[in-house]
């Protein structure tokens, strides 16, 4: 604890004891917000599937959406263009390149989270949740990580086993 924090903390504590109330050290100007009022921003998906929304999608629907909204940058069938390839690529990534969904991404939930928050590049947050599920299903199926007819939803997505998931080493465990 810094001296400054200690001094302020001690003052707050003294006041709290005298007034019978707890105080944080700031002026307490944060305004309470309800979960429903922050729902429009509440878009983080965790690897265990936490916060995945209702809805579902399949690869065939995703392929149509991809051709319409994604192929301009990512290339026909996800082979790459001004933006990176999303389907195919080398079996292993190296320092020469080639990190792909199939050979590198550790969690399938990252696909849903990133597509929904950031894509399409020029129209982020314009896709519906079922469209995001469908695109996720398309990319997973095209990379042969799920079957062509598998439905992707909040239950099935976190269960998709990404091939490279166990190949990561935490660099500085004591910093976590």
């Amino acid at each position, binding site marked *: 604890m810094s001296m400054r924090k200690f001094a*302020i903390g001690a003052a707050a504590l003294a006041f709290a004891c005298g007034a019978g109330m707890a105080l*944080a*050290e*700031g*002026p*307490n*100007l*944060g*305004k*309470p*917000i*309800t*979960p429903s009022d*922050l729902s429009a*921003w*509440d*878009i*983080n*998906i*965790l*690897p*265990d599937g936490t916060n995945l929304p209702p809805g579902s999608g399949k690869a065939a629907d995703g392929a149509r959406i991809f051709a319409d909204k994604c192929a301009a*940058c990512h290339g026909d069938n996800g082979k790459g263009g*001004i*933006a990176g390839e999303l389907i195919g690529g080398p079996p*292993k*990534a*190296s*320092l*020469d*390149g080639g*990190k792909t969904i199939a050979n*590198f*991404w*550790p*969690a399938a*939930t*990252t696909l849903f*989270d*990133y597509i929904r*928050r*950031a894509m399409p*590049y*020029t129209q*982020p*947050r314009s896709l519906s949740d079922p469209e995001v599920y469908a695109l996720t299903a398309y990319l997973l199926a095209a990379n042969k990580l799920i079957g062509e007819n598998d439905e992707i939803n909040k239950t099935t997505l976190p269960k998709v086993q990404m091939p*490279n998931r166990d*190949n*990561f*080493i*935490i*660099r*500085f465990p004591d*910093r*976590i």
Partner: protein
Amino acid sequence: MRSKTRSDHSIAQVAGNGLLDRRALLGRGVMLAGAMGAGAVGSVTGAAAEPLADGPWSLEVGDAIPPYQTPSPFEKTVVRTVDNPKNEPRNSRARTPHHLLKGIITPNGLHFTICHGGVPDIDPAQHKLVIHGMVKQPLVFTLDALERYPMVSRIGFVECGGNSAPLFSNEPIQANVQALHGLASCSEWTGVLLSTLLEEAGVDPKAKWLIAEGADSPHLSRSVPLAKAMDDAMVAMYQNGERIQPGQGYPMRLWLPGYEGNMNVKFLRRIQVTDQPALTYYEARTYSQILPNGKAYRFYFLQEVKSFISSPSPGLKLREPGIYEISGVAYAGTGRIAKVMVSADGGKSWAEAALQEPRLPKAFTRFRMPWRWDGGPAVLQSRAWDEGGNMQPTREQFVALRGQTTKPPSVLGFPSQHFNAITSWAVDGKGEVRHVYA
């Protein structure tokens, strides 16, 4: 004075190929200045100066003072290099011209910038920061509200995890220090400690992480250990005294001193407190570093001890033999810089550089080394130690652990990240400087 310093032998050589005693800069700077001005040392010609005359600017009234001063037109080349000037739908980067800067503070307009969806035009009156998740009470803060909180100011660097990535190339890429190391900068940041806001919201004791998110179009998000958030993380609103520049995250950014630039989420709008990391795109894919054995690092976070020479460096030609100052920056995400050694013979011999005060933790430290160039070939290197004894590795040591490419990538490419090994500049007999591996 001049008679005493006329000979360069008055300054002791302390390492091979002309490195001079750093104390010539510290306690006896006048002596070195005298030596440089004496002609016999500083110039091969020794010619006398020309007679003085008034310049035209001394004979007329100057311009009106502008409301916001910008550099002299003569400094028009002191700018960042931008790699996406037409704002094509891809990442955009601007690199700091280290070879043209001195000191430790990067001017705001020259601070490096990386944006993943262009630079957003955020109305500060509309901007909000929400803290929610594993807290007693989710809270929303406006910029006006945060202005009333106790603020702290701290000088520190921000470095992209991918800075210096061209040095992963198997062959040295010929580029200047701006292209190679330009994704690191140093400022004074002022804002509210994140711990203050988290304590107000009331963090659940079971929480371990937070997920920070920006208001830019990719809604860039990164997971941050709660330990770092409670240690020295700041919601920064001011940069070198003025509001943070748009490219740095206006109106507020997360600043995590010493941690990978991408985690210092700009345009900060949301912090969700969690018990697990999110494995966001940037941490799960981009900022996970492939290792030679096929595995990859995750959550590298730390920008380890590092230094590079900014002058001389490629593009800065030495015009004649004589005394020069080798100068550069050293920094470590772990704390203060303890020592910088400099070599002029490719690492065969080393001498300790002078460290300019202030020498602050997790900030650029400027080092200086007087050097007498005899006109022959030289290889200049710097090597830094942090206060914990961590040593900047040689490139050979580094790539043995971290790998390198099999063919040279684009100078704009990012084969991997967190390169912190020694950089080598070769000076040839004409005074030209180029990038080498030594």
